[in-house]
């Protein structure tokens, strides 16, 4: 194991201001940035604030800007960062609470405005959906709500005044997911156009670049959503047609439901 040192510059402060403080520690093999932050807490700065839960890239709590790049601290390995000081700062788009912790309540407020999922009543033997028809929705549901895409999106990053009228990329994928859900019957297009500010997004793709779940936010959600929504004339018949077409008819074999084990464990077949 090497005796190398790591040098960290970590933002310390609160809503009234703050500055970067320097911490030096012995490096440890295989560490991620969050490990180093935890070691700083345990040995040098017990009140250094950061959020975390899973330490495995699954909960989206530990978002920060590492060397200027919005990232998860628990998934950023120290040995993959360039030599020199590692700079850790809180997300810029949200108000500071303390140190690396920001007030992300904006996102929870936007979530409250999403018109709910609305399926038809289930048929006697339960809903049927084909894997191919839910694949895209599943991609969006991988979202761990780290809000890094929200952090990087320039529409709100530099323009606080846009926040009330803008849902942001995390919620564009949520709208896209609901729009593409084979069972949903709720039409949110007017809402997305007027209240969620989809028109303000100019497809810079910065959100896609930072998404730790590698969700293709722009290509797979925003652009198709724009086509459906902005698609000038509000045409309920065309919309309905599109919804219905998403549902592939079952072949007779599929409908009878001959399930052999290996077919069943393979979601693609």
């Amino acid at each position, binding site marked *: 194991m090497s005796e190398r040192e790591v040098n960290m510059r970590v933002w310390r402060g609160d809503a009234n201001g703050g500055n970067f403080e320097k911490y030096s520690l012995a490096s*440890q093999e295989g560490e991620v940035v969050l490990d180093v932050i935890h070691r700083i807490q345990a040995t040098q700065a017990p*009140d250094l604030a950061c959020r975390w839960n899973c330490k495995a890239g699954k*909960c989206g709590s530990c978002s920060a800007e590492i060397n200027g790049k919005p990232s998860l601290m628990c998934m950023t390995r120290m040995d993959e960062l360039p030599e020199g000081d590692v700079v850790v700062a809180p997300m810029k788009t949200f108000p500071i609470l303390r140190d690396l912790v920001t007030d992300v309540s904006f996102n929870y407020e936007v979530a409250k405005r*999403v018109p*709910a999922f609305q399926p038809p009543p289930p048929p006697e033997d339960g809903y049927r959906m084909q894997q191919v028809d839910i694949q895209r929705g599943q991609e969006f549901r991988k979202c761990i709500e780290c809000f890094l895409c929200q952090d990087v999106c320039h529409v709100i990053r530099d323009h606080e005044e846009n926040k009330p009228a803008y849902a942001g990329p995390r919620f564009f994928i949520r709208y896209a997911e609901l729009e593409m859900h084979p069972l949903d019957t709720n039409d949110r297009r007017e809402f997305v156009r007027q209240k969620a500010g989809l028109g303000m997004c100019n497809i810079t793709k910065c959100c896609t670049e930072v998404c730790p779940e590698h969700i293709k936010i722009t290509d797979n959600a925003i652009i198709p959503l724009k086509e459906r929504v902005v698609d000038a004339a509000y045409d309920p018949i065309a919309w309905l047609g599109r919804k219905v077409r998403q549902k592939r008819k079952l072949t007779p074999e599929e409908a009878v439901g001959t399930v052999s084990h*290996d077919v069943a464990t393979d979601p693609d077949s």
Partner: protein
Amino acid sequence: MPEYESHEYDVIIIGAGGAGLRAAIEAHGKGLRTALVCKSLLGKAHTVMAEGGAAAALGNVWPEDNWKVHFRDTMRGGKTVNNWRMAQLHAQEAPDRIYELEAWGALFDRTADGRILQRDFGGHRYARLAHVGDRTGLELIRTLQQRAVSLGIDVFMECKILKLLKDSDGQVSAAVGYWRPTGEFIVFTAKAFVLATGSIGRSWKYTSNSWESTGDGHAMALWAGADLIDMEFVQFHPTGMVWPLSVRGLLVTEGVRGDGGVLRNSDGKRFMFDYIPEMFAAETADSEAEGDRWYEDHTNNRRPPELLPRDEVARSINSEVKAGRGSPHGGVFLDIASRRSPEYIRRRLPSMYHQFMELAGVDITTEPMEVGPTCHYVMGGIRVDAESAATTAPGLFAAGEVAAGLHGANRLGGNSLSDLLVFGRRAGLGASEYAEGRTGTPSVDNSEVDSVIEGALAPLGRDGGESPYDLQNDLQETMQSLVGIIRTESELTAADEALGELDERAANLSVSGATPYNPGWNLATDLPSMLAVSRLVTGGAIQRKESRGGHTRDDFPGPDPEMGKVNFVQRYLDTGGIEIEPTTRPEMPEELAELLKEGN
């Protein structure tokens, strides 16, 4: 004394994992004023980390499956010390709870005919786990969260409850806590409370659990006078990561084995064939060829021993490592690379692929993983009534991992997520009924509130005391080395003594800084619960002089039929000590007992 804000509700639910969210949805649905309180942001609870799936006998892949088989598997996995009524309700109701999630927007993986796909897991006779790749917990928590938000349920997030208070007739009436962002104190009064606070794993050094799993609910129930049972039963999951050190303990889903992965020692041997216990011999393959055929044909072959219940697999890995046949970093090898195609592995186990690639630099499609046991789940917890989830403290209900009974001595994978749904709902109903029947306004004694606040603030005002981080570290070392997967009388008594000393040190903590978002202070307020649950686990482990499920005694290596008839109940005495009492389980009805017989 610092000021505090007060809120009044019908039902307060402490914890917003799967169990708490499901309880809140139910209580809200009954028309009661309901609020959720949680230590982290909404949607970040431990449930989000669950990987493999939720067990429910839907019979979509194996039409032979039904609640009776699920009941049998759960009881056998739990070494039959489970609360049979809970096991029965769970097996019967789990399918409805899964379908309900679908109606709320969940997108489970599908079978070829468009129904919910199910996967194999250890101890389940049939492929039974509804899942979404290896991120089922995320799907579950997000679906419930979105449902709760659309219903407009109030959520107090990043708010930690310290203690429950009772009114003069002994009903739980208030909860005192603080907002983590500001450090300001808050008091909730309500007609009924539900504890859904999850696990206790943080008291061990190597654990798959998040920082929140400090056993707060277990401790608060204890302090409120409720009974706890089975605290000696802690599940060490057989496959945690062992390297790099910084991720030691992080979970490797059982889905790897369910999808064909096998365990090998340093000689490359599939050692699990050497460890098949009598109880499972009749249903376990005795050759590699048969085990391999089973994946394609469950009817004519028996399951491979890698899919024995978790306690068996964890102990076997432990023995291999002790015998000097471990991997370079002190685990064994989990190999799926030589058994399945890279495409299959990436599709079935995307987040495992990701986790090993990014954190360990290991490509699981070409190399084996190194794995070893990690502290994962507590079967023990608050004693509850199967139907209503009522604890023995009036006004207090409990569901999810903090409650006990369903899993007995050992939990089967996938049975927790379904537990959260089935008993979360029942706790919501139970609490609603209690709240509706309660007369008078719940009251709180201000001096009691003041003393809770004073206690919490004490470390901030104290100079020259000890760091909470050092105390946490010593506690974790103690529990890891003395109350781990294999236990013995002398080590357990040593642990009990060590915990006494740690308790004394805990009374002398010092914390720097102020109360707003101060992790050092937050930890200082978690330590009393961590110490309390450590005591309960150690106390139970000393009493249970046999080996059963998640509790293995080196000095009593086999099960003892007499011990098999009892559960150890622990409760707090007003004098400050803890009383431990064996209680006999109610007899199982004949028709259920029949299901457990050989050949069924």
